[in-house]
């Protein structure tokens, strides 16, 4: 991973250069899969020489007026298992969104919309990015959110920059495994979508205060504080992007994002849904954060019978004490069907199975790498593998994989205590 980062390449970029899927690079870097020796040699050679397959013409960057180090919006290998997907128009932008790792398993999410747009406000945006990175760089404990905003406002006043901003601290909660504490404020920046589920809910993600720099009473809006369990996704979009998506109406743009982010294509790369050839009228930035922590996250060849059976036995052991043999058997049958579905649609390729215990349920995801061809009708059909999944799990959710493939998510509710005592 270090070699790739030294080259300044994303996983996607490296995958393209070696002509392999990004999933392979991702699994390889996470230590979940060892590629075949020939693939490994290919990756090492491309990393060493900086070559690989030619970058397509369309993907060559337009020469910028001046170039600066391209720092990632979301650092890899952060202190929390949070995955970030960012997107912005290739044009120079005065908006920025970033995610900075802080001490004690905390991250700061900042989205700043500098008044004006494009190259004219780029220096201000770069200055503020640097200020935020510097301010957080020396911390030994997570800051108070209000202190950050106060100091940020002082700096804005000093350098005479007007902006809108959203700031959030996300830290691991001590209450339950995979729970996070979320604290956020927004000033002149439309609060992002905080989407929970499936089943989906969208609680309030921040109060909206006046634009920055705010002072005195204006500055004292209270942060929204929540403890949240996965799955959750935090969806940030600049007003320029919302306006373009909603054809001039930000509310409509927000509905577009909500529909996409609660639909089966929500894991696909943002550029598939956001890229456009429409001329730029305002800066367009997007950032999506989601929890990617699991108790078990395994990638293996679907044809590997021993590995598949070992996994089923492990899952059975995790739930049987609480569920009893009958529900456990039905649940494992659902997993068998999900894996059979992965084999049918994913060929004999790699399947990834994830498992997480949550306070009220167990969640299992089975992801294949095949062409996505699981249709809505197929999912709802009776007398089918999906009907068996619905029998063994209380909820079944199907979505498209990040690049390709299908992810089947099974949610198995834990028995209520009263039911247990009656039994």
């Amino acid at each position: 991973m270090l070699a790739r980062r030294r080259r300044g390449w994303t996983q996607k970029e490296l995958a393209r250069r070696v002509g392999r899927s990004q999933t392979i690079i991702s699994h390889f870097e996470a230590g979940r899969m060892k590629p075949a020796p020939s693939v490994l040699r290919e990756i090492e050679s491309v990393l060493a020489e900086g070559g690989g397959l030619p970058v397509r013409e369309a993907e060559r960057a337009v020469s910028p007026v001046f170039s600066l180090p391209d720092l990632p919006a979301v650092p890899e290998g952060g202190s929390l298992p949070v995955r970030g997907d960012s997107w912005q128009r290739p044009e120079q932008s005065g908006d920025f969104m970033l995610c900075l790792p802080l001490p004690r398993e905390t991250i700061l999410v900042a989205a700043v919309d500098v008044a004006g747009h494009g190259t004219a406000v780029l220096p201000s945006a770069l200055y503020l990015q640097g200020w935020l990175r510097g301010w957080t760089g020396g911390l030994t404990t997570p800051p108070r959110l209000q202190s950050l905003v106060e100091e940020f406002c002082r700096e804005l006043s000093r350098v005479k920059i007007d902006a809108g901003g959203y700031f959030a601290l996300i830290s691991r909660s001590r209450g339950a495994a995979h729970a996070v504490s979320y604290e956020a404020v927004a000033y002149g920046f439309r609060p992002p979508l905080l989407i929970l589920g499936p089943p989906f809910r969208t609680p309030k993600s921040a109060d909206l205060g006046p634009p920055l720099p705010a002072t005195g009473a204006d500055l004292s809006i209270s942060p929204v504080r929540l403890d949240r369990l996965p799955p959750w996704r935090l969806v940030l979009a600049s007003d320029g992007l919302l306006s373009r998506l909603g054809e001039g109406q930000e509310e409509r743009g927000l509905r577009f994002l909500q529909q996409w982010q609660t639909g089966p294509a929500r894991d696909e790369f943002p550029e598939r849904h956001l890229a456009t050839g429409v001329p730029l009228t305002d800066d367009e930035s997007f950032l999506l954060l989601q929890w990617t922590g699991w108790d078990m996250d395994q990638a293996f060849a679907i044809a590997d019978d021993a590995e598949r059976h070992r996994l089923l036995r492990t899952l059975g052991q995790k739930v049987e004490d609480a569920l009893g043999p009958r529900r456990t058997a039905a649940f494992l049958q659902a997993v068998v069907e999900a894996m059979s579905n992965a084999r049918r649609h994913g060929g004999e390729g790699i399947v990834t199975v994830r498992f997480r215990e949550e306070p009220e349920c167990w969640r299992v995801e089975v992801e294949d790498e095949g062409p996505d061809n699981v249709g809505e009708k197929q999912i709802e059909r009776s007398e089918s593998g999906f009907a068996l999944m619905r029998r063994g799990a209380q909820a079944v959710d199907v979505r498209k994989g990040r690049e390709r493939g299908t992810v089947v998510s099974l949610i198995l509710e834990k028995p209520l205590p009263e039911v247990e005592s009656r039994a």
Partner: protein
Amino acid sequence: MEFKEDEPYIVTHPAAGRAVVHFAPICDHARTRQHETELTGLVEISQAVACDLSQTTQIASDWLRWLARLQAKARDTGKIFGLAGMKENVLATADVLGLGEKLNKVATVADVWKL
């Protein structure tokens, strides 16, 4: 009966003209042409075929559907074909797939020979 992880079933021949297909505890293997040829051939050459599912706790839907097709083939050619010892989950799986009424279900392999 002991199964290797990659064996969906093991065939035995307790008597002339009779075959027993013992299915693995987890029968979720890729159903190959070789499996199809072997079991179709077994129905063709045997007078009676018993599918012993007494050890099976999970069976993939495509295997169960295929057993239903084999049973239909056996019926069309005047052969005996039955599924013995189906556990609760396998029975429920067959019901969800709409096969519950169609399959010849019996308690033991010995009961298949009486069909």
